[in-house]
């Protein structure tokens, strides 16, 4: 639970980031990517197809068609307009967000993001 002073400063930081056009475009692109039904359906399909691919590979029953289908699905996801827009806007926002993390880290004496991020899953 954050104390009031910290929460107020965090709210101010969120407001300042939201007022930055680069970050605002990224937020909007992320929301529209997550809300895109076609892209979600393709994403849901992917783990199932990968599982099927591995099973067939293990059974030595993998066909060229299976390989092509999985590759085509990956390409459909990568080249989906909502995904392209998300990736492009994220890359642009990263410079800005990274400079904020740097500003925080210089004051704290350690990398804020490296310590505050959720534990990595392998």
């Amino acid at each position, binding site marked *: *639970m*954050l*104390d009031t*002073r*910290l*929460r107020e*400063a*965090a*709210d*101010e*930081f*969120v*407001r*300042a*980031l*939201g*007022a*930055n*056009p*680069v*970050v605002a475009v*990224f*937020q909007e692109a*992320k*929301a529209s990517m997550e809300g895109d039904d076609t892209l979600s359906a393709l994403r849901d399909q992917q783990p199932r197809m990968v599982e099927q691919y591995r099973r067939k590979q293990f059974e030595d029953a993998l066909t060229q068609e299976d390989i092509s289908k999985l590759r085509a699905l990956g390409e459909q996801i990568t080249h989906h307009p909502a995904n392209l827009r998300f990736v492009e806007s*994220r890359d*642009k*926002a*990263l*410079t*800005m*967000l*990274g*400079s*904020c*993390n740097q*500003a*925080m*880290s210089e*004051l*704290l004496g350690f*990398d*804020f*993001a*490296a*310590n*505050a*991020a*959720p534990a*990595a899953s*392998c």
Partner: protein
Amino acid sequence: MLKTEQNPTDSAAARAAREAAQTLARKVADSAIYKEFEAAAMAFREDEEAQKRFRAYQNAQRETQMMQSWGGGGGISVYRFRRVEKELIAHPTYKRYMTAQEDLLIVLKDLNVYLTEKLGFDFADLTKPAGGCC
């Protein structure tokens, strides 16, 4: 006239965001938990016995890893490593430092969860330095 794209870190909005980031970091640095972390870290650095135990721990850790990578002699070095580790953990200055670090990490992670909820993206996960997994 040619239109040039502005550097995203150079605009007034970017400067305002960086200033807000600094204000937020200052609030963290002003907190009792951060001050205790700094004091505990300093005490640990200046405590000769704690430093001696820490170096012994690091050496035992290195030795154990080396032995294991060679595929032998693990038993004795693992036993030694556990003993040295126990001695380090039992040292009050080290214990204080570890507790202070854990308390500060909880605040940092809570802060990031709050930011993530408000921003709609994970600020720390997105900006943390790239590193290898495991």
